[in-house]
């Protein structure tokens, strides 16, 4: 299956899971709580959605499992270099959009209010 089309925008769930794992290695439930906290509850990942996405990311080689469950301990996921690259591409794409919006005066310049 390999890496996906790099130019396609990521789904919000994918983006937020990547962001969460970029900060630290986490197990699934911690990812869910982190995303929920960061988006102030706007994005709540159900267990199906969350593991479906992680499952695909494992398949695509974006994340790795660092600790296998021993005696019911949970799996911890870590971002791979490939995953970091996907995240960077997406963030650059978003950044380009934001810069364009600023240049077109659609967004206030952060500097002007500082």
């Amino acid at each position, binding site marked *: 299956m390999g890496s*996906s*089309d790099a130019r396609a925008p990521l789904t919000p769930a*994918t983006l937020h899971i990547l962001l969460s794992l970029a900060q630290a290695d986490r197990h*699934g439930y911690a990812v869910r709580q982190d995303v929920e906290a960061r988006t102030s509850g706007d994005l709540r990942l159900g*267990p*199906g*959605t969350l*593991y479906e996405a992680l*499952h695909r990311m494992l398949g695509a080689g974006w994340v790795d499992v660092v600790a296998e469950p021993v005696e*019911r301990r949970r799996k911890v996921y870590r971002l791979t270099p490939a995953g970091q690259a996907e995240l960077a591409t997406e963030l650059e794409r978003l950044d380009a959009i934001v810069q364009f919006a600023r240049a077109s005066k659609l967004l206030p310049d952060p500097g002007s209010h500082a």
Partner: protein
Amino acid sequence: MSDWYLTALLRLFPRKFRRQHGEEIRHDVAAERGQRPTRLARAALWFEITIDLLRSARRVRAPYRHQLLTHPRTATSGGVETMASVLQDLRHAVRALLRTPVTSLVIVLTLALGIGMNTSIFSVVNAVLLRPFEYREPDRLVHIGANYASDGVFDSNHAGGIYRRIQASSDTLVEVAAVRNIQQNLSGVPTPLQAQVGWVSDNIFSMLGVSAIRGRLFSANDPPGLAVLSHRLWQTTFTADPEAIGQVVALDGVPYTIIGVLPAEFRLRVWSSPRRIDIWKLPDNVWANGDVWDATGLSFSLLKVFGRLHDDATIEQARDEMGAIADQVREEYSEYREAGFDMSVVPLLETVVGNVRPTLLLLMGAVGFVLLIACANIVGLMLVRAQGRQREMLLRLALGSPRSRIVRLLLSEALVLTLVGGAIGATLAVATTDLLASFRPDGLPRLDAVTMDLRVLGFALAATLVCTLVFGLAPATTIGRTGLVTRLAGNRSTPRLGRLRDALVVVQIALSVVLLIGAGLLTASLMRLRSVDPGFQTTQLLTFSISLPGARYEWPAGTGRFHRQLEERIETLPGVTSAGVIWPLPLTDIWSGQYVAGDVTEEDRAPSQYRLATPGFFATVGIPIRSGRGLESTDAAQVAIISRALAERSWPSQNPLGRHVRADPWGRGLTEFEVIGVANDVRYRRLREAPMETIYFDSRNWSWVDWEVDFVVSSQVEPLALVDPIRELLSDMDAEIPMAEVQTMAAYVDARLAPNRYALALVGLFASVAGLLAMLGLYGVVSHGVGERTREIGIRMALGSDRGHIARLILTRGARLSFVGLTLGLAGSLGLTRLLTGFLFGVAPTDPTTFITISVALLAVSLTASYLPARRAVRLDVITVLRTE
């Protein structure tokens, strides 16, 4: 819920996914559930999780996996498109339905009614029959009943000595507990009251797995003299005071220290009719009439015994063991041998709800019929709609729309209708469940536990979905396979459709006839039961009970004197004709025993009802003394009055006066009583049972302490107006004795009929709704027929047909349908009403009067339903009709 449900959902995922992430998902769900404290929040969580897992399972299984980390590029990719088009279908359906708002509304309301009533009844069935008890491991609890075959008494109570023996020698039962419900006067509180006391073995609460919300409950080796409060009593009498623990109260003058309070939801469910216990105490010897907890005498069979099966034991093993114990008991005690003593072991739930199961299943069946009729009705309406839209459908087909797409459209419409109807129905059910429970018929246990739960909602949902399939697919079948072009071009109506609608109406009428006849039979039974002469007067009578404390009254002299005095003083009140004492009240089957007299020899001892009475009783309730005399205050202790039935059986065509009857009211062996009078027969056990042989003893010689006796007061004024004056008299004599169970005799007798009335009220309601729906269906079909034949009618009239002929034409059609429906319904009733036999009294399941009455009524109503459209037809204006058509 929960584990198996989650497992089922996870099965939707491919195995590989399940292996990798199943544990994680389970873990997360468990963690999440821990954060939802309320039941509602947990239900919401399950809903979210279900949707979430269903969606992601579908995506995981979809072939275009890689797409899903990123946004889909085009709208054509499978799954997403399907979702979108389902939404589109639904939007379409809503729009189509709004085009025929009246039909849609009628369908939704019919459905709401059908589903609402079904859900409501199911919630009762669920609470009473299906839901396990709220005790620890409820399916291991068993009732150990005592059978006294010779007295015709089964699954009854044990004497204390037998209970102790079971407890000491059973290996199959881990715990054996016993309870006796008695009434005692509670004082040492602001207002003394007659309390329902649960007299229980110390292991009862631990066996059931109940714990106190305040203080503690009984434990092994607790001394007597302790009491536990029900939540209700604690809330009311003790105003929820935490300081109540440690307080001392008195029950019939004996002090008890309060040690704890039970949870609000706790009920001891061992009786088949619910009892509310106010206060609980341990076995003690304060009952001066004898030691209930140790006596072995048959007449001390007062304890309800139940236990918990050992983990390794089966109920059959327990049965064998109890059988062996019963053998020993029969061996040792002759009175047990003569009584035909044996023991039964039955799951506790079964003893509590077993006898209401038929009623509830009857109701469930009846209400199921209503849903069927509602469905038939709606299918009829949907067919009419489909007919009106046949051109639209045919056009779609002609333009190349696949048939499956049209079926989907029709299903979507059905889904929208049923979901709305189902939602309204479920809401109705929630509202009416409280109403159903508020009838509180005496015979229905566990009604306080009627609530909506997931099983009930699941039932409503399942009913809804089944309806959807029926309504959705029925019109789809009418999309013909042939003659697309000819049908597009011409004729609107298809004969096949008309026949289908006719068949539906016939089915509706047939089903409703069955229900109406069932309701008719129940009504006739209730009327017969009401008009049964119980053998005593029920009007202008007041009854109440009092109980004298053994601590202050000596029995039998002290209590007898008190009763006599109260009786005399009540008789001096203005408006009172006479007063008397009886125990137990008529229509309470709690005290029976054998007798030997005349032709009834020692070998064939017969069962009889025992009653304690005062001289004033017979005149007060109007039981005539046929020969001899009534009781008199100067009588010796060993006299008795016997009922006519007993006299006729023992001394046929002989004078029983002065002879002796041997009876055993106190479990001390048969004692001789001289017959001084013969009284008319009274239905002492049940209204529906022929009078049983009865022996009256003089209560003066036997009046117990710590036990209630019932007073009956005959009055010339409104009986309840006597309550206050009597209460004053009583408190004048002893301020600590409350007047309990105050009611008129009429209300008391009426309450015995409550279960019959309850069943009848509901079946009657269902039958009326069914009949109404069937008539609406008939009206709809006939009236639609008129609409379709407007042109034909116009032409006939133009050609000189007279209006009477036209009207007959239309009426005939309606009459034919209802006649066929009626015939089928009568045939069905002949087969089905047999199931009602157990509910009927004095009416055969094939009672011709009921069958004929219902038939005539149905035909009359159905002619009216066809008359309305017929009238419209004859009023048609020929010119207008011919011009517009």
